């Protein structure tokens, strides 16, 4: 075990290389660039023995991931924002092909206008692609989740690609100390990759030809079952990691001071981390408030949220907006409760376009709800006109 003090991107590169993928196709985009530069550097030092393919677009990056994974090797890539959007078609392809590709996505605002700060609309708009989605709140969680994700994705009961999301700059470019296990420990945790299907000249299958509705539907159903299986496996893998390395970031959600709470805040990513400071301060003020940091948006933690909803009123902060509806987390939280709990749920849109969301802001949001002054759904700190 060593301690590495570095940015989220370099930590992700370290984790990726320690997982020993054979092929990493990638294309640079701010703020993911230092992740791929990190991998390129490990090529130079010899620490990364696989092949780094400098493709000509993110679309091709995901295509090359699909090709490499289908040919039977462990595959990793990273992207952000417009890069992720360009991949969209192939994200569906990878999931339907049941290829356990692991990818980091650095949550960044979508243009126009050009904006490299963080919000989560890039990955939220990929939620129906079949990918498992993690949202991290620290560099340590990035490291641990990258390694764990390979184990999860490659499990026969899952066989779905995994996207590890973390916020632009707040994590991607901020240095934090991170505990790094020894390579041998990682190798023991993450066994050698065994593909569940592959392109093999001794077994000439055709992958992806024309399929009739009745058979296609079976793939969709199996993907859904696999996401359900992931709900059980994510906690198992997290617990195995905790046992081996002593670190734990939660299961599908990370509960923080939820015991006895009559209000529980739900948030993802860096806001989830910042919220811990707010919860501590509000608890000191005597508010019975806790935090449930949502770590996986897919599979969605319906059961966990229902349990919390039976205990407390819920406050949801979304750093994304499904235009024409509301924050994605807010919608899905309410759907989890529907017909089973009539607890109150308040939604807040905050931090779009990369606006800061500080612990002070989060405290203001929580107080407003506790004091009964919050609407069902509102934009926090909106500085625009009167509409």
């Amino acid at each position, binding site marked *: 075990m060593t301690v590495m003090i570095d940015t989220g991107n370099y930590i992700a590169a370290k984790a990726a290389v320690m997982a020993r993928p054979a092929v990493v196709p990638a294309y640079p985009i701010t703020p993911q660039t230092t992740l791929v530069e990190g991998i390129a550097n490990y090529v130079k030092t010899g620490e990364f023995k696989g092949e780094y*393919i400098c493709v000509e677009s993110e679309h091709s990056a995901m295509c090359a991931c699909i090709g*490499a994974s289908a040919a039977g090797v462990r595959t990793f890539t990273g992207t952000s924002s417009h890069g992720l959007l360009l991949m969209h078609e192939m994200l569906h392809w990878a999931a339907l092909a049941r290829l356990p590709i692991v990818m980091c996505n650095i949550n960044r605002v979508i243009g126009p206008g050009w904006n490299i700060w963080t919000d989560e609309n890039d990955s939220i708009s990929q939620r129906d692609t079949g990918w498992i989605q993690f949202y991290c709140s620290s560099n340590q969680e990035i490291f641990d989740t990258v390694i764990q994700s390979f184990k999860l994705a490659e499990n026969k009961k899952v066989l779905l690609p995994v996207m590890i999301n973390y916020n632009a700059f707040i994590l991607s470019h901020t240095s934090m100390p991170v505990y790094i296990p020894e390579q041998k420990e990682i190798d023991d945790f993450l066994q050698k990759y065994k593909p569940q299907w592959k392109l093999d000249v001794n077994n000439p299958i055709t992958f992806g030809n024309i399929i009739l509705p009745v058979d296609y539907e079976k793939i969709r159903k199996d993907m859904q079952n696999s996401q359900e299986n992931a709900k059980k496996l994510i906690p198992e893998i997290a617990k195995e990691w905790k046992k081996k390395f002593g670190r734990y970031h939660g299961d599908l959600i990370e509960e923080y001071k939820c015991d006895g709470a009559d209000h529980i805040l739900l948030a993802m990513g860096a806001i989830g981390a910042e919220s811990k400071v707010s919860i501590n301060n509000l608890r000191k003020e005597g508010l019975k408030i806790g935090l449930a940091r949502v770590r996986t948006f897919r599979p969605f933690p319906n059961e966990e949220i229902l349990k919390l909803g039976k205990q407390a009123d819920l406050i949801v902060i979304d750093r994304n907006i499904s235009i024409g509806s509301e924050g994605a987390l807010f919608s899905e939280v309410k759907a989890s409760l529907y017909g089973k709990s009539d607890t109150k749920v308040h939604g807040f849109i905050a931090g779009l376009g990369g606006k800061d969301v500080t612990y002070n802001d989060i405290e203001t949001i929580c107080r407003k709800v506790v004091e009964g002054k919050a609407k069902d759904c509102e934009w926090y700190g909106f500085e625009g006109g009167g509409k």
Partner: protein
Amino acid sequence: MAIKNLPVEECMIPGSAACPGCPATMALRIVFKALGKNTIMVVPACCTAVIESLYPNTSFDVPVMNIAFEAAAAGASGVEAALRQQGKGDTTVVAGAGDGGTYDIGIQALSGALERQTNFIYICYNNQIYSNTGIQRSGATPYAAWTTTTVGGKTEFRKEMGEIIQAHHIPYAAQACVSYPEDLYNKLKKAKSIKGPKYLEIMAPCPPGWRFGMEKTVDMGIMAVETGAWALYECENDVVTFNGKSKLILEEKIQRKPIEEWIKQQGRFGHLFKPKKDVTRIKTIEDHTDQIWKRYRKKYL
């Protein structure tokens, strides 16, 4: 190489979904005769994806990976890297795309794979249209040809993909035609023996797309070459060598036949002949073809 000497081995299995008279299956039979069973094929959206036939069966006896329309070359890059990482660098990776997937939507991924020296063979079977989607115009569709999206005839000339490929200075590129199987076989064999990116384009006259009788596929290919509408050549390390009838046309040992003889047999040019002959547009085609051959002579003689 005489027909007799071409291998008996087949990787295309009869009873596929291909149209009767299909030039793509005709070409693919030769492709696999040349490349053998130690081959993995990457196929984007195109007729070949249909020809594979219906899940859970396939008409291909080599591994095939289907991928999105614009993605054949990028997918192949991934397959090739993964094979090499597993010590299987001797397996031939071949991408097989149509002209739409090559000239248009797939050109970026193709250019990228050529530039980064992916060790694979990219095959474009060129039927000069989006056949699979129901005969729409592509960048390879010739001037004046009817398609469902150029109802009065295409108003632009086709691109010269061969010259675009040559600008990548890859070790091997060639143009062939389904009507000359021995030539196609030899070009494939050569491509297989060379390391790095290889490009092979195969003229593939499509009976339903071009509106000619399905028994005439081979004739249409021969006419394409003899009229100079298509050229057979190889480009090895930037040296271009024309072959077959194309060489004779280039060297002016024979005259190319008038394009009119080729197009009048195709319903897609029917509007140039009925109700009355469109002399202007036919002349435009002939003049344009002359221009191309002038340029070829200047560059390659």
